[in-house]
């Protein structure tokens, strides 16, 4: 009975659309056409055979493998710095959360101009050092993806700190002092004291971050639109483009389901890992 309102909300707005959508991907269904036929896995084989989708997958794998560890480790380090009461701690916490409050799309708009030559930060700094003016990295085939990753790390790291800080402050002070008395250097203290205690939490935050990265859309849409060429194309952009721009609905829906399947796989690993680590 207590679960009923949630079941209605999630069922009606999340699960039913998702399942109806899944069924529709096995057909040629499209909202614009009046007839449709069952085609089995044909939409999926078309998506997988599309070289553009292959590029998108490659990009998102790089994106996730670079962004998530960076966000986790930077967020972890900042949480470590904020662990003990320090002068103005609540101020640091508020200030360090600000980048996360910027919506992904606003962050894209902002960095679009901040990375640009005429109004940018990098050229201002380079100018002082007497360096040459550089063009915006988002226009460069090789630099666009790293720049996009950096923008995402800037926005998400503060959120990671916010999520990790309660776990960090819960570690008893004596544990740190013991390690310090034993003469353990900083990195050993982090590895031996903080990591074991925070493993379940790190795993949970990691799960959220992987999902967030695999669906990277908002910031990329504004910052590069997937370009130049396909340098920053992501599966979510690909699927949005097929469903809503080129009106190839079945392909859009099928590729979106492949994203969901990838997150589902990572989720299964997460459930397994957290079972093992909490019983150990």
């Amino acid at each position, binding site marked *: 009975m207590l679960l009923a309102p949630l079941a209605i909300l999630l069922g009606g707005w*999340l699960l039913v659309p998702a399942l109806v*959508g899944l069924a529709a991907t096995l057909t040629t269904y499209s909202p614009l056409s009046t007839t449709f036929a069952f085609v089995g896995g044909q939409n999926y084989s078309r998506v997988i055979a599309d070289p553009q989708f292959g590029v998108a997958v490659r990009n998102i794998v790089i994106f996730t493998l670079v962004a998530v560890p960076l966000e986790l480790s930077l967020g972890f380090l*900042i949480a470590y710095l904020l662990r003990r009461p320090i002068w103005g701690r609540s101020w640091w916490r508020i200030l360090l959360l600000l980048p996360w409050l910027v919506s*992904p799309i606003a962050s894209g708009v902002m960095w679009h101009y901040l990375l640009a030559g005429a109004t940018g930060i990098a050229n201002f700094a380079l100018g002082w050092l007497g360096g040459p003016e550089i063009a915006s990295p988002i226009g460069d085939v090789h630099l666009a993806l790293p720049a996009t990753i950096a923008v995402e790390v800037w926005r998400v790291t503060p959120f990671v700190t916010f999520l990790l800080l309660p776990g960090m402050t819960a570690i008893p002070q004596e544990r740190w002092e013991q390690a310090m008395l034993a003469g353990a250097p900083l990195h050993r203290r982090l590895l031996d004291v903080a990591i074991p205690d925070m493993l379940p939490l790190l795993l949970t935050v990691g799960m959220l971050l992987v999902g967030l990265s695999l669906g990277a859309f908002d910031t990329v849409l504004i910052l590069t639109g997937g370009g130049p060429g396909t340098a920053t194309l992501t599966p979510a952009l690909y699927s949005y483009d097929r469903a809503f721009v080129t009106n190839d609905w079945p392909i859009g829906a099928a590729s979106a389901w492949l994203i969901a399947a990838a997150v589902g796989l990572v989720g299964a690993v997460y459930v397994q890992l957290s079972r093992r680590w909490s019983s150990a």
Partner: protein
Amino acid sequence: MVVRVSGRREAVIRLLLLVAITAAFLLPLAWTALASLGVLPDNSSRPPSWRGRATLDHFSEIVVAEPAFWQELATSTLAALVAACVTVAVSFPAAFALARSRFPGNRTLTQAFLVLASLPAMAYVIPLSDLSRRVHLIDTLAGVTISEAAVTAPLAVFVLHGSLSRLSTEWEEAAVIDGAGLVRILGRVVLPIAFPSVAATLLVMFVLDWNLLLVPLVLTSGEVKTIPVALSDFFTFERELDWPTAAAALMVSLAPLALLVGLFHQALESFALRAPGGPDIG
């Protein structure tokens, strides 16, 4: 003694590092704030300098570039506020039920909520927009609000489950003995004890809802626009928007969130993700 001395040195290093990191993370925002006031860098001069005098004109230019801006701000606020309340209202009883029942698979179900919370919006918005069109919820504030509430609910359930499952049950048991009904126990006993984490969840859900793009984007053809949808318009349709005006719009859309977080930062400290079965934290 050795520990204390090196501890003090470490505290100084810690403070310096914090200052440097905070400055690095806030520099882009400061740059944007300056631009919204019309103060722009002049990167072609050597050494680079600043040009422009501080003015508030760009804030009034927002309405010229986007006539419906204030209306969109109101839409965003209303949708995010109602959605966050709905999310917490349905997640709280569900999280309570999950936290108090012991059936096999209970834990996996809770973890499934986290996986669901990690699911990118793109995975379900395509059929969602189609179904919403069919039930005539497209282009309505109600449609956008309910959908926003639905997509953020899994995270709320996971977070509230974490805090409720660690509450002592003795007050609830006392209330049961007194013959209190379920609704009364939830409202009068559990809610007051769990209030800090409920308030923190509400605040985080508001931020998440306020910043959602894909869900409102596919559910509107222009009638009901939130701020992120309006921002995306500028670029997908290649409309001309000059940087100071864009910066002013960004500042205005960030201000309510910054204000909320500033006012309620103490409540936010009780927002903790607790892994099911993990050690007690917070």
